[in-house]
């Protein structure tokens, strides 16, 4: 049995969260609101000490007006974004939002094409029918399955006739894939529970070696 008060508190909180499985209750509601509050404080301090001060406040403070010009752009964007909360100048915030959108959406175009389309298509055509029968069948399933599943995502043709049949096959491939990864995921979820059980049995109660 652990003597450390922090371990006892953590154990009580753990049991409190598990109680949500039985039904929603005031203890869980309290723990949830406590968690939101603590996370708010945690996030503020971590981003303040680890990002905001070292990356912006200190360089600006030390070099004053002579700071690298780009830091003033950061300040400008932050000011523009603050306008969202001031009714009269609300629209100015859209400039900061547009900057943010441009950076992410602009960069998404080539990177999505690389990792999402080209890599997957090159992977699909890289069929190799040498080796064991199960690999040959597998490569066939992979090739046909990918094409069929992609046909399910055709929008401008009604799913009838050949397109319909291929899309149907595609749905089945999707279902096999989802079933397989669902089954496989159960493993890691159980490990999470094992982690908490080990905490309660080993660190708190000391029942397990």
């Amino acid at each position, binding site marked *: 049995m652990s003597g450390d008060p922090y371990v006892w508190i953590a154990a009580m909180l753990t049991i409190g969260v598990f109680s949500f499985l039985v039904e929603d209750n005031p203890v869980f509601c309290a723990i949830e609101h406590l968690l939101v509050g603590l996370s708010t404080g945690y996030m503020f301090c971590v981003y303040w000490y680890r990002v905001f001060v070292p990356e912006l406040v200190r360089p600006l403070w030390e070099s004053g007006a002579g700071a690298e010009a780009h830091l003033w752009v950061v300040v400008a964007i932050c000011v523009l974004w603050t306008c969202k909360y001031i009714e009269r100048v609300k629209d100015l915030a859209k400039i900061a939002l547009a900057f943010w959108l441009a950076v992410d959406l602009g960069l998404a175009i*080539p990177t999505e094409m690389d990792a999402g389309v080209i890599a997957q298509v090159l992977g699909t*055509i890289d069929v190799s029918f040498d080796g064991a029968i199960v690999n040959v069948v597998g490569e066939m399933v992979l090739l046909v399955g990918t094409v069929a599943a992609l046909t399910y*995502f055709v*929008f401008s043709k*009604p799913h009838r006739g050949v397109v319909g049949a291929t899309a149907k096959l595609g749905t089945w491939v999707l279902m096999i894939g989802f079933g397989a*990864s669902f089954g496989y*995921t159960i493993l890691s979820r159980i490990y999470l529970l094992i982690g908490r059980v080990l905490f309660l049995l080993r660190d708190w109660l000391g029942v397990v070696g």
Partner: protein
Amino acid sequence: MRASLAVLGLVLALSTSAAAAAAPVASAAGKRDGEARGWFDSKRAVNLGAVVVFAGLFLWFVRTGRKGRPLYLRPIAGLSAIDDAVGRAAEMGRPILYAPGLSSVTEPVTVASMGVLGRVAERAARLHTRVKVPNYDPLTYPVAQEIVRRAFAKVGRADEFQPDDVSYLTSRSFTYAAAVAGMMTRERTASNFFVGHFFSEYLILAETGVATGAVQIGGTDSVAQLPFVITTCDHTMIGEEVFAAAALVGDDPVSRSTIRAHDWFKLLIFAFVILGAGLKLAIDAGALAWTLDGLGVDGAQRVIARITAALYGG
């Protein structure tokens, strides 16, 4: 604006394809010191070509979309179910929950989710139903609030919009899961929407929603969570269907028309896959070497080696 758009599209297509054509010259210059320093990274020529082709198709269908020709698009399950789900919540006099996912509003899937949110909020406003939007991302939070406010105003019920319904909770995934699970159970939301990018915490939200007896509509691009969306939602928009739903939801013919660009590009992918796989089989089976020798092409092995390296280098 329309003319400048078309001109810009052309300029983009021309300049990038010109750059692609000039690739060998520029990249040769860059190659000398090993690292591509020149004006074009030839390793990314294929990517550039693909983007230019997609952008070309996209701009072409923007043009045809402007002509307003009706285009067939197959129904998307999640989309048609929105009205029933909102109606159900209105009948029961209980609020709707819309979780826009954990990614920032600058991620494409969250941009799509904002489009769907606009449609849901509009329908809810028309039926005097509250829409609770718990946010994970600090940037998505004010944008979502703006969209829901605009939906209520558009239906002439700006006064019924409660700003606190669209709230920022936290940027920690399991704190968010706990808070939203609590919200669903206590506010007894009648219909839940999960549209956007989710991580492992998704199943906590969805299973809690199922336990409250809510109707659930899900749509996500996160491949890892789709198996859980399928098993917890009455209607699911799988991957690209979320983007298609966002294009359909605005009833804007141009947006609708851009989905044709996706399908035409898929056609190119089908052709490339069939040719590519066929060619690989021919190479493996030695058929290609045999035919090249037959045609008297000398150095067939060098040609095949280069094809293999380029296409199947992997």
